[in-house]
């Protein structure tokens, strides 16, 4: 009798183990191995220049939002690559999300506003001057000094899409005459209500950089071409690429050209030549060459 009990117990155990094995190896999706560089964190654990309540009051005082009771939902995100922590505050009234804002937890600066109250379909824009005036008023409200920025450019939307009512007015950032890659202030204007509905403050704290390149554009193009012929880039599929023109930027390198992995954390800003290279299939990459050392410091891939 004891022998049979043992056999049955063993069989039941094997059945359970077998089922778990079948489930985990065949049915269940594989476990993730990716280490994210951007991830959500508990807002209550964030300590910075601005508390959530201060951020909320700052948004209410700067943006044209009525002073009523809102259900403010807060999340926080950490970006390990750029070392930033950002609060996202969403202002709800009667279950409707009226406005979302991003606040840099370290500096207390509002980096983004997305106002959901206005979403038109009619185009009442008469001229770009009107657009720039509307955008300028938003910059004043958000305490961004437009005088320190060069003239803005206006981007018209594509007709027939969901964003066809959204015009963008963009001030690109320059550092001692050199454009800063992804450095800008953007105001998005709704074409029907003629109101600013979006604000993005992407002005970068560049630091102290010598903006006189010691590597010429031609040298940078040649260096990029040589780099793409090397064994390592070829092994990663960068074969048959031709280096084209180069543009000088103050930029933060994103992707380590030696490993193909993203820099975490990213190095600081430096003066760089962005050499656009096109493969035989039309696939593009920008090879980023340090304009002082001549080293390839990043590979920026296009999709």
């Amino acid at each position, binding site marked *: 009798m004891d022998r*049979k009990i043992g056999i049955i117990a063993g069989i039941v155990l094997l059945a359970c183990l077998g089922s778990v094995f079948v489930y985990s190896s065949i049915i269940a999706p594989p476990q993730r191995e990716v280490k*994210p560089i951007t991830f959500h964190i508990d807002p209550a654990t964030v300590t910075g220049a601005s508390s959530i309540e201060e951020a909320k009051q700052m948004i209410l005082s700067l943006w044209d939002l009525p002073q009523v009771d809102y259900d403010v939902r807060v999340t926080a995100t950490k970006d390990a690559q750029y070392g930033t922590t950002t609060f*996202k505050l969403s202002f709800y009234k009667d279950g409707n999300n009226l406005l979302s804002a*991003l606040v840099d937890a370290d500096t207390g600066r509002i980096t983004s506003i997305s106002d959901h109250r206005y979403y038109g379909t009619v185009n009442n824009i008469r001229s770009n001057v009107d657009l720039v005036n509307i955008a300028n008023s938003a910059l004043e409200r958000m305490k961004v000094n437009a005088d320190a920025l060069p003239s803005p450019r206006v*981007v018209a939307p594509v007709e027939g899409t969901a964003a066809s009512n959204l015009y963008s007015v963009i001030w690109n950032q320059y550092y001692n005459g050199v454009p800063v890659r992804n450095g*800008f202030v953007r105001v998005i204007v709704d074409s029907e209500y003629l109101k600013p509905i*979006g604000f993005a403050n992407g002005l970068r704290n560049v630091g102290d950089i010598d903006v006189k390149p010691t590597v010429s554009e031609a040298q940078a193009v040649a260096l990029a071409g040589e780099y793409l012929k090397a064994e390592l880039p070829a092994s990663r599929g960068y074969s048959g690429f031709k280096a084209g023109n180069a543009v000088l930027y103050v930029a933060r390198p994103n992707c380590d050209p030696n490993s193909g992995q993203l820099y975490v954390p990213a190095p600081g800003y430096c003066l760089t030549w962005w050499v656009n290279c096109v493969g035989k299939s039309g696939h593009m990459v920008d090879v980023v060459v340090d304009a002082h050392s001549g080293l390839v410091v990043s590979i920026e891939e296009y*999709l």
Partner: protein
Amino acid sequence: MEASYEIESRDRPGVEVEGRRPFSQISLKEVSIVFLGLMIIVLCFYSTSIVAHADWKYDFTYNSTIGDCELSAYYCASCLEYEQYNSYDITATEYADPTKSTVTSSLLGTSKLFFFMGHGSHYVLGDNFFCAEDGYVGSSDIPSLTSVHNGGGQLLAYVAACHSGDTSWLTDLREAFVNQGSGAYQGFIESVLAHDAYHFSCTYFDSLGEGNMLATALSDALADPNHSLDSNDVVLVGTTSIRVADS
């Protein structure tokens, strides 16, 4: 097989009781039946738990050769994986380097939300496409999307690839997806840097995970300060009031 034994009852001594026998006399055949039964019960338990967690199939695919794509798929899936749609759970799954047949046969037509981030382009005179591991997925490859897993049509196709939202060709992906039954389609009009698409996508899906409409998520993503994409770089067509997660 005889299953009748004479066993003395405690209550009524000497009465024959059918069906009761010593445990030691159970045959191996019966043990096998019990074993199979247990296997079925255990498998049923797991199957039920799988079905219970697979109410809506949200699929996130990407080219693994570009670091931003994998991270983007991971982050965007994480925004929705613990959410619900229509009061049922969302199962968000990532797939690296899917083959063309996986995309067109296993994912499209079953996914409630289809996400792709990777390379894309267009033919000289033809339509645009995005790159699966072993071939291009173009407008003619899109199957019917009107009856996906667990019912209804596909809510959103989000294709983050160069020229995925190109509107200047005779036939294109955006038309194909919407015509085949996707509620909406989002793509990029021209060449887009992977890092820009990464930040745009993260903000977009963060907003969708809060239960916002597609149009609201688009506004949030356009106001993100970490990319240089503007309203003329992106295309969102279809029903923009769709939500892909409950608020």
